[in-house]
């Protein structure tokens, strides 16, 4: 199969918002899409830089998200702060290995996958690599897809806190850790969003 023509060679720029292919010569000085009037660039400017910034922010936030307790439960039998990892261990020990696995995937495996995947994408783009371009494109779509599943943990804490309010008998309150975790999810999603997947296909000879 002959190599496809690149948009630059054709003098075309794709609007990422409305999907209109615009000839560069048709762009005014404001560089707006003639159809939807959103800003239009050949490649999102500072894409890698922003992705990296968001990624780093996510990684930094992931540390307190795991160290700080996400939930505080108190009841007749005492009170306890639980962290994400502590909760997983507790569920596993209690025999609920399925729940433990679910939480593990949602709150540990997925964020890590995202960190590694985005990091890999960034590295390869910066290195101008042509390695496994199709797989990297798939990887990017997977990262985008799994991003919000990490919100599972946040929803669990939110539901528990809302439902478990029995005063003396037992109450659950969210703790700072869950806010950090929520921030991790949001920031990594932003990171994935700011990554311009078209860069995968660019190469500078």
């Amino acid at each position, binding site marked *: 199969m002959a190599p496809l023509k690149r948009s*630059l060679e054709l003098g075309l720029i794709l609007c990422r918002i409305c999907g209109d292919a615009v000839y*560069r010569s048709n762009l005014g*000085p*404001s*560089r707006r899409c003639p159809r939807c009037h959103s800003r239009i*660039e*050949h*490649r999102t*400017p*500072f894409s890698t*830089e*922003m992705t990296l*910034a*968001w990624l*780093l*922010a*996510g990684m*930094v*936030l992931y*540390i*307190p998200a795991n*160290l*700080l307790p996400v939930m505080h439960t108190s009841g*007749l*039998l*005492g*009170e*306890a702060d639980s962290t994400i990892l502590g909760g997983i261990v507790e569920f596993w020990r209690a025999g609920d290995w399925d729940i433990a696995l679910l939480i593990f995937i949602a709150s540990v495996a997925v964020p890590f996958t995202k960190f590694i995947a985005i990091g890999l994408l960034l590295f390869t783009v910066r290195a101008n690599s042509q390695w496994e371009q199709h797989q990297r494109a798939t990887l990017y779509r997977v990262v985008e897809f799994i991003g919000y599943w990490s919100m599972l943990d946040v929803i669990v804490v939110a539901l528990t806190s809302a439902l478990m309010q029995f005063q003396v008998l037992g109450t659950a309150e969210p703790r700072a850790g869950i806010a950090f975790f929520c*921030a991790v999810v949001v*920031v990594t999603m932003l990171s994935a969003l*700011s990554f311009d997947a078209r860069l995968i296909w*660019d190469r*500078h000879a």
Partner: protein
Amino acid sequence: MSEAPTPESSRELPTPAVRNRRWLPRLVWVVPIAAAVIGISLLVRNWENTGPRISISFLNGEGVQVGKTLVKYRDVTVGHVSGVVLSADHQTVLVSADLSKDAASLLKADTQFWVVRPRIGMGSVSGLETLLSGVYIGMKTGASGASARKFVGLESPPPLSHGPRGRELPLHAARAGSLAIGAPVYFRQFQVGRVIDENLLSDGSTRVTVFVEAPYDGFVKPVTRFWSASGVNIRLGADGLIVQTESLAAVLAGGIAFDDGPAEAIPTATGISGEFTLYKSEAEAMAPPDGDPHYVRMRFAQALRGLEAGAPVEFVGVNIGSVVAVDLGYRHRDRSFPVIVTAKLYPRRMGQAYEALAAQGKTESEETLAEFVGTLVNRGLRAQPRSGSLLTGKLYIALDFLPASPPATFDASVRPLELPTVNGAYQELEANIVRMVKKVNDLPLEQIATHLDTDLRDLHGTLNALHNRVLPSAVDTLSALHTTLDSADRTLDVESPLQRSLTETLSETRSTLQAVRELADYLDRHPDALLHGRRPQKMPKSPAAPLSDAKP
């Protein structure tokens, strides 16, 4: 890269207008920087709040849970248990706890830790809240200047975890008696403190630590005497029955009372920090000090059942010491088993007598004292067991002058001094009774009984004869008597002829007697009538005159 130069575009757009806005997307770096700052600040705050990690060893870790059990100081949480492991030798449980940073200053070398569990004691119920919440570790800071991180936990809570101000006083006692920790301390029937500790010292005696609360600790002076106020003190004295007790709680849980010692008392504590002595009773506490005891030994040639260690030794009725030991000895010479009684005597208890002796220098040394005792023995001083109570049979040793006792030898060089003895008065009485019983026993009772039996049989025969022979005739006699009495009765009846004639006779006799009296009367007034006869004139007519005339 997006600005890849193409010859035609560079000519059309010589100055791209977007350049001046390029800094804006770089603002995104604020996010990771902010995240890093927040993270670092959290870490710093966490590090700032992280106090010391301490290790406490307990004998058992009952109820202590990692992450759940809290460490509390004055009921405020200052940390939590972060680990429970067995010690390397498996003898203790090592509880590690993370304390908050501000609790670090509480960790002194003598800081105490204990596990708070529900406790129900004589005086109080404590730790009930732990029934639901689980145990927690209590903490009491120490006074030491040095800080520490490893502690040995107490197995029971200290009685004054964060108590009121006051003073702790160590009391020294031979035995603690029925005192319990928490027992009240009284000053003139007013509770001013509590017993907070009891220790058995290496010499076997007891140290009781009491805590006297703040304004009242001023009552504790060097001359203060402490005594055990446990139980009820019932005394039957010459002045009647005296029942003494500090309070009902003291009766149940024991207690300690204190008061100023007698005015002339020698201070029992060297300073306010010194140890006081805990006396057994108020009387003992208030007694003047005994001074050093002197030991004496006495050899009794009789059984001394009822003589126990602690029995009093009295000198002319004054208690001057007590029996220390009662031992069985053996004398080879006559194969006898004398009872050896060791006693300690307090010469100071002799009061003025002791002072007088001291003034003469008799008490300067053991030698002079022994010499003096020798002269007393020559005057008849003997030790004698006597019965203190006929009910209980308890004996005491009396030192008394018995000049009638057989002479005794006294060796002034023997240590301890050996006092000559005589047998007890009660024992003498006993021996007399035994002799009497023996005499009674020796009486020919059987012979007497035989004789008595024979006599009784004779008596029986006599009685039989009486019954068979005398009684029937007696019955006959009685019936004859009855007949006689019947006829007598008839004779004496009012209607009987005898009775009637008797009545008549009597009335005639009365008339006669009247006439005789008139005659006598007349003759009295007219004696001459005997010669001249009756002169009928001049005389008032008396009704009896004709009669009296007729008679002469």
